[in-house]
């Protein structure tokens, strides 16, 4: 038993899990508002991280400015995707919509490889001190900042959905589109807004991961890791998405610990969330907080 490693991995799990939670949240946001399962969520991270990297290295902008430009770009990006690709598919069967987002995913992944190459590229350093020690554990500053940013985004979401006009309109649309429409909510606007917000939030997560690990196409794997998290939490629950993300992050790192201590199965920890996913789907397909969809004839 190596307790230090266990603590270190648990902390890693929390930090990575919080990031999963953020991505899962933006995934659930799209699903709740427009009933679209976005298989291109990971590519949002990827595009956001590369664009930010490009602003910082090619244009030599200071971080805060490049970051703001990235957010602006991602807003437009999300809006355009929704209007051009997803809007014509409203009312089509679920399979078509899923396929469209899968198509978007491989398109943008290939596009990013074409423009920026396949090799991971590091961000210019952002923090002065690389590492700090927390409770005797060695932690990268970036990790701490990412945890802070994740929490901030989560609080922002909570405020947005409980107090802001647009957030309430979005919840109303998610609850019943026709009723929302009759109360004066513009449903197409809500759809577009949900995609824009989702793209922006994912891009923030993408930049955070990029700063930690460097930017590469591996980033888009976050979009796939998001599925265990959202299924565990329940597809239409924001709180569930956050919890699911944290649990999956912890599970992954504990599987890593188990593996490194006893099993030695190699990259077992990368697949562990998917075994968990199949189990959850078999036992409790609506997750911890999801709405049970009861069908009556």
């Amino acid at each position, binding site marked *: 038993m190596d307790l230090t490693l266990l603590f270190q991995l648990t902390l890693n799990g929390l930090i990575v899990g919080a990031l999963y939670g953020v991505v899962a949240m933006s995934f659930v946001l799209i699903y709740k508002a427009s009933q679209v399962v976005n298989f291109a969520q990971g590519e949002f991270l990827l595009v956001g991280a590369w664009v930010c990297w490009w602003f910082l290295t090619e244009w030599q902008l200071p971080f805060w400015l490049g970051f703001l430009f990235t957010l602006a770009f991602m807003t437009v990006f999300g809006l355009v995707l929704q209007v051009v690709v997803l809007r014509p598919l409203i009312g089509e069967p679920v399979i078509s919509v899923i396929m469209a987002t*899968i198509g978007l995913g491989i398109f943008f992944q290939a596009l990013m490889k074409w423009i920026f190459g396949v090799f991971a590229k590091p961000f210019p350093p952002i923090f002065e001190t690389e590492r700090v020690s927390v409770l005797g554990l060695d932690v990268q500053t970036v990790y701490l900042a990412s945890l802070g940013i994740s929490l901030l985004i989560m609080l922002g979401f909570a405020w947005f959905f409980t107090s802001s006009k647009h957030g309430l309109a979005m919840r109303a649309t998610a609850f019943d589109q026709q009723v929302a429409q009759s109360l004066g909510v513009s449903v197409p606007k809500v759809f577009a807004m949900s995609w824009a917000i989702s793209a922006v939030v994912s891009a923030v997560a993408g930049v955070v991961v990029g700063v930690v690990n460097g930017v590469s196409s591996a980033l888009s794997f976050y979009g796939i890791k998001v599925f265990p998290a959202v299924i565990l939490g329940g597809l239409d629950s924001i709180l569930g998405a956050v919890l699911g993300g944290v649990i999956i992050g912890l599970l992954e790192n504990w599987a890593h610990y188990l593996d490194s201590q006893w099993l030695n199965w190699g990259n077992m920890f990368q697949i562990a969330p*998917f075994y968990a996913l199949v189990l959850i789907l078999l036992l409790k*397909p609506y997750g911890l907080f999801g709405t049970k969809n009861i069908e009556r004839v």
Partner: protein
Amino acid sequence: MATVSLLPAGDYRTTYRADTTIFPTRNSRIALWLGIALVAASPLFFGRYELSLLINIGILGIAALGLNILVGFTGQISIGHAAFFGVGAFASAWLHDRFLIPVWACIPLAGLITAVVGIVFGAPAARLKGLYLAIATLAAQFILEDFFARSAWFTGGVAGRITEPLTLFGFAFDREESYLYVVLFYVVLMYLAAANLMRTRDGRALVAVRDHYLSAEIMGINLAYYRTLSFGIASLYAGIGGALYAHYLMFVSVEAFNILFSIQFLGMVIIGGLGSIMGSLMGAAFMVLLPEVVQTAAEALAGGAIDRALKLGASISYLREMAIGAAIIAFLIFEPDGLAHRWRLVKAYWKLYPYSH
């Protein structure tokens, strides 16, 4: 998924047998025989490269048909089809090496093994539908890929597995010119089997599950049984396609059966036409020929200013992936019924020419 078939005026059916026939007119039968004869004669006028494209279309077409039975006819989605294709490829090679079963027997056996694997992974399908199923099959894709990398006894591990060519009565089908006939045989067999399946009680039950599963259940169709059965059939087709692929390439690598390949299968089904049997073959042809078109276009631009500015030559594989993604999206938006529907429109136009109204 419209099934418009134009019949000559005065062709009235008086029996159910005549109504459910696969080939409604004499011309469609003639067209089929002509098509088969043309492919059979193709070694006379095609080089090895064109033949390899034809073989690929056939092999992928078989697997795509399986996916179409699952997605287009039963309304279940699978994002793990390439993994099942891989199971078939490795199973066939493994059966031959381990038990010394002749290759011609390995191919159908590999199909059966894959069907069993498919039923195991399809078991959640009995309860899940729509996007939950999509996510479950996505998990199956990653779990099977991990299994391939791990189990050296079955797949040869990271080194991959070398397979033997198909031999029959001492004649080895190890060249494009001869292997084409093996693939042609299987394509005809599997496509006829699928066309016939759709005329049986089971086939109609699958369509009923797709169209309205609650009504289907009320009419006495066992949902769990038919959803699992559909997964089994889809995997059977994937397995046979995979086995044919293994004995064609004579080498199977672990990395080949990734998620992008699965997406390509879905793309074939969508582009060809959901719920259309011949559409699966058209979709496979489109997906095989699309990279060739991209390649040709890139070569035509090679050396020019555009080529140098965009690094076309070095990034041809990304361009192909982008073309696949763009084609899927374009078809979903502009022609959701796929090539099969477009083909029907073309036929209808000429049949009614010049009075198309």
